[in-house]
């Protein structure tokens, strides 16, 4: 009996040890009366019972921190230096990142690789910089001021009912993801002291078949604009991707032969699902030049060639008015679907289209400007352009043909157009896409698996099987 009792004690102790004792600590550095300590009275909203602006801000941070904390196994506290204070202009919501990076410290699994300090602490099983913070997060308190962002401000509810406001909970989840390691020790594609960050050794160029740590700086400079082919190479993400991503939507052009190909399509957050395949002839829609739509192909007013568009798939240009407006005009003209052509060539990725409209029943997709030009050339030559909008079975959206989840890699190089995000064609949208989309649920989807790939672990109690979208 004594032996059995000792066994129970050992098992309980072991379980406790495995669960990890580390917590995510929100270190409020704001001065009295400001930021997290703002005493302005507010009404409780969306499950946030704070009665002051400062308390509601803090409650959101605590809830987001708890979400991550319940998924990460560490014995070392993670100190998040948090602040709500003025930042430049209203267009800057906030910033975040690891406070420091570590290389060749205690117990790091790989030599000569930079790790964010919170992860380095986990491996060392001690705080490598006692008393110093691990992650810095600061948000712009001016966003809540009248006229800063027109009528938009932060939403402090915890129920995802932000409407036209900014869901702070999702934004904090995203920023903490960066702080925990979805980041780099140097601006991409550079290396700090010629050593890769732990994310760099999972950054894979599917064209070259090489990871970034296997490339020269010159190769990485090319790789960072290799749109659609720069991806995350990690077992955890690859195994989990099918639980979070659906089949991609494509525009299959059957005729004329000169442009017959499969084009990547961007999705709208409104309109009919592309699960239902539609096929038809494409017609370039035209409308009057108006102040709300200064070109004849922007689809911003009622189509002047509605009879030609009826029963077909309308093609219009992006720009000036909302995607919803264009789709409404197409539907009113009797189109069975609408293709919106991007008006910028900087990304080479068909844009995802936000908006909401329960009255829209036709599918809405986008294509890149280059692909739009190909189709328009044929249409202007009176060729019959026949297309099908459908899902592509056997593949996942936002992945390479080889099955790697793509990283955000716009084709125009701008220093810091951050590859530390998933690519925008991923559907449903993911937490760590660069645009932090408004349709996100309050989960951490693939990001937790990305963190597992770089060395974090999950406590047994969280159970990976429950992590679904």
């Amino acid at each position, binding site marked *: *009996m004594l032996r059995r*009792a000792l066994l*129970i*004690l050992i098992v*309980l102790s072991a*379980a406790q040890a495995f*669960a990890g*004792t580390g*917590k*995510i*600590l*929100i270190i*409020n*550095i*704001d*001065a009295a009366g*400001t*930021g997290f300590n703002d005493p302005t009275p507010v009404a409780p909203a969306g499950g946030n019972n704070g009665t002051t602006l400062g308390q509601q801000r803090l409650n959101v941070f*605590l809830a987001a*921190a*708890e979400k991550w904390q319940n998924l990460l196994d560490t014995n070392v506290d993670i100190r998040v230096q948090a*602040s709500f*204070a*003025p*930042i*430049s*202009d209203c*267009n*800057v*919501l906030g*910033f*975040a*990142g690891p406070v420091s*990076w570590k290389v060749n410290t205690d117990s790091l699994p790989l030599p000569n690789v930079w790790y964010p300090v919170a992860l380095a602490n986990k491996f060392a099983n001690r705080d490598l910089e006692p008393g110093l913070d691990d992650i*810095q997060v600061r948000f712009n308190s001016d966003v809540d001021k009248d006229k800063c*962002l*027109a*009528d938009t401000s932060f939403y402090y509810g915890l129920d995802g009912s932000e409407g*036209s*406001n*900014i869901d702070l909970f999702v*934004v904090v989840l995203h*920023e903490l993801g*960066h702080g925990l390691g979805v980041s780099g020790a140097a*601006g991409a594609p550079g290396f700090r002291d010629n050593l890769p*960050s732990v994310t760099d050794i999972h950054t894979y160029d599917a064209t070259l078949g090489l990871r970034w740590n296997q490339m020269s700086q010159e190769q990485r400079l090319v790789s960072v604009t290799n749109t659609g082919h720069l991806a995350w190479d990690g077992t955890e993400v690859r195994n989990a991707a099918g639980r979070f991503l659906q089949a991609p939507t494509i525009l299959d052009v059957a005729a004329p032969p000169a442009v017959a190909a499969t084009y990547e399509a961007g999705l709208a957050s409104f309109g009919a699902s592309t699960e239902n395949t539609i096929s038809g002839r494409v017609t370039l829609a035209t409308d009057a030049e108006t102040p709300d739509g200064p070109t004849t192909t922007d689809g911003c007013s009622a189509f002047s060639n509605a009879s030609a568009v009826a029963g077909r798939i309308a093609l219009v240009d*992006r*720009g*000036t*008015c909302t995607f919803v407006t264009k789709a409404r005009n197409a539907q009113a003209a009797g189109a069975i679907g609408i293709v919106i052509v991007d*008006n910028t060539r900087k990304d080479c990725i068909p844009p995802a289209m*936000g908006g909401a409209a329960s009255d829209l029943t036709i599918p809405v997709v986008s294509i890149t400007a280059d692909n739009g030009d190909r189709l328009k050339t044929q249409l202007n030559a009176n060729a019959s352009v026949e297309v099908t909008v459908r899902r592509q079975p056997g593949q996942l959206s936002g992945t390479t043909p080889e099955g790697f989840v793509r990283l955000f890699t716009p084709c125009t190089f*701008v*220093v*810091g*157009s*951050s590859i530390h995000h998933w690519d925008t064609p991923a559907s449903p949208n993911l937490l760590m896409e660069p*645009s*932090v*989309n408004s349709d996100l649920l309050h989960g951490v989807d693939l990001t937790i698996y990305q963190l597992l790939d770089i060395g974090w672990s999950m406590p047994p109690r969280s159970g990976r099987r429950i992590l679904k979208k």
Partner: protein
Amino acid sequence: MPRRVFIAVMLAALAATAASASDEACTRDILKPVGAPAQRVILDALFEKSAADVYGRGIEVLVVRIGLDGKPVLACVDSAEAAKRFLETPIENVARKAREK
């Protein structure tokens, strides 16, 4: 004797479990505010590299525009160039409400 040892061991085990449970409940700490009022930071300064840290810190910055439908459009970037590109690109997502005001 074995029974006493058994009881003692089980009590210790229960105490350990209870400690673990209470530890889980205490999921976060908050320190008292210690800072002076924070200085306003400008966009370029967010990405400036100090002499001691020429590589920066891998900071990610969220910038926002308001779309024609009145909803925010966000972009997470890690350089001033990328931030300005997003903010200056003439897309349909310009602030109609701001313009009206």
